[in-house]
């Protein structure tokens, strides 16, 4: 049967760790199931009512049995829980320098933007051997980006960013699915994850004359008048944006937040939500004026203000 693979190998180190845990659980469950079923079936045959067998007395070691079949499973469960929780936590902390890719899900397609501006639809090209962090949002309903070869998925939620990172190790072409029911063509919201060796990926990325995300963001920054307040010669007093990305910001209510993607997006769409300490809440909202893709570009621009600009 062409193309039918019982145990497709994972395409990343994390997927390998996943499979180890999975097969450990499978073995454990298998042993438990076989043990219980064999015992039960054994009893069914041995103590069938037509058989003349010794049936005197009840089990006097009842207490020991009860405690052991509470205690042993409990111990095993805690081991598995800790192992799985540890593996899971790994997904929440992308390494510094992970290559960001911005993905918007919408009915019924995936719009993918790389940091240098290269766009693709329903296909995600990534380099092998480099950590990649996906920043995900939806334009409409909840979707879920599923990459079975990497053993990961993450829901894609409107109104917020979700993130997941991975490092693919094996070049190849893999499935990409939508895993959260999202309406009529949910089944068709599929695509490919294409893992390329680093040099071929660099070549692919450079194809096409497209301004980088940050450069496009800079253009939007000027077009929508942001520089009127946040720019160098602004007449209105507004928090400076140079170097703000990734650093803590003190707010007017005394709390502190880290200026991540979510903070930038909320500042654009819900400017009264988190006002920087010492500033008036006079920034207007840009809701309805910017698409999710454009917001990604502005975020890339703000990011670039704090570091050496990437082409």
């Amino acid at each position, binding site marked *: 049967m062409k193309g039918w693979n019982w145990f497709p190998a994972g395409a990343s180190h994390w997927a390998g760790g996943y499979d180890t845990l999975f097969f450990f659980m499978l073995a454990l469950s298998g042993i438990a199931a076989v043990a219980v079923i064999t015992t039960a079936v054994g009893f069914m045959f041995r103590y069938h009512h037509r058989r003349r067998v010794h049936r005197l007395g009840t089990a006097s070691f009842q207490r020991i049995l009860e405690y052991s079949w509470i205690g042993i499973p409990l111990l095993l469960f805690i081991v598995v829980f800790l192992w799985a929780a540890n593996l899971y936590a790994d997904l929440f902390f992308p390494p510094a320098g992970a290559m960001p890719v911005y993905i918007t899900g919408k009915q019924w397609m995936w719009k993918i933007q790389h940091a240098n501006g290269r766009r693709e639809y329903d296909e995600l090209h990534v380099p092998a051997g480099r950590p990649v962090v996906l920043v995900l949002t939806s334009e409409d309903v909840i979707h879920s980006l599923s990459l079975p070869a990497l053993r990961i998925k993450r829901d894609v939620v409107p109104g917020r960013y979700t993130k997941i990172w991975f490092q693919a190790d094996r070049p190849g072409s893999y499935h990409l699915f939508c895993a959260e029911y999202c309406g009529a063509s949910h089944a068709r919201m599929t695509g490919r994850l294409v893992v390329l060796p680093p040099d071929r990926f660099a070549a692919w990325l450079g194809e096409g004359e497209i301004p980088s995300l940050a450069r496009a963001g800079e253009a939007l920054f000027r077009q929508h008048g942001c520089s009127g307040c946040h720019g160098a010669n602004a007449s209105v007093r507004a928090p400076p944006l140079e170097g703000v990305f990734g650093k803590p910001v003190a707010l007017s209510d005394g709390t502190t937040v880290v200026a991540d993607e979510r903070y930038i997006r909320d500042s654009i769409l*819900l*400017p*009264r939500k988190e006002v920087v300490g010492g500033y008036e*809440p006079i920034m207007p*909202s840009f809701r309805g004026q910017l698409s999710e893709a454009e917001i990604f570009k502005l975020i890339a621009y703000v990011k670039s203000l704090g570091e050496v600009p990437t082409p």
Partner: protein
Amino acid sequence: MKDPTPTTRIRNVATSESEVRDPLRRQEHAAALGMWLFLATETLFVGALFAAYLLVRITHPQGFILGSRETDIVLGTLNTAVLLTSSLTMALAVDRQRVDMTRAASRWLMITAVLGLIFLGIKGLEYTLDWRHGLVPGLHFEPVGGQARGMELFFFLYFMMTGVHALHLFLGIGLVGAFAAMLQRGRLGAGNPAPIENLGLYWHFVDVVWIFLFPLLYLVHRT
């Protein structure tokens, strides 16, 4: 398999005690337990709204403050006083019924119902004013600006929570009225305290829910 000969473990008892074990007390116990369980379900029912309120307030603190300021604190306080008083009159009704003063009990119930109607009247007045001021989400909501979303969510929850409360109060008033009529006609005498006690439980529950609603809706940062 043949039927075993009857053993002495389970037997039909000749005495009538086991069946007639004070059926009246048992029925009263059952009715009271039933009412408490029903109130438990009501707690979970409104609990979901309180949980939603909590979450939305955390994400829209400013909107809730501004929204709460638009509620009429005078009318709200007045309503609170009305409802608390009605709990008093309800308790008095229950007490009178217990000592077979059915006429007095009926009168206290009628006062309770009237107070309930006053509450609903004041609530209706508040809703009308909210409409005039353009504070009804989805139908006629005027505020704009940065906190408008938060205010709209506040008022959505405001109308949901007070609306569900008012519906329950309305049903309660109906029952109170029906009980008042029955007492006037000499039914529900002293030998049968359970129904009116359970009614009292229901009424006090509706009151207690209001005691939680009032500060959450009217007193946000208003001190």
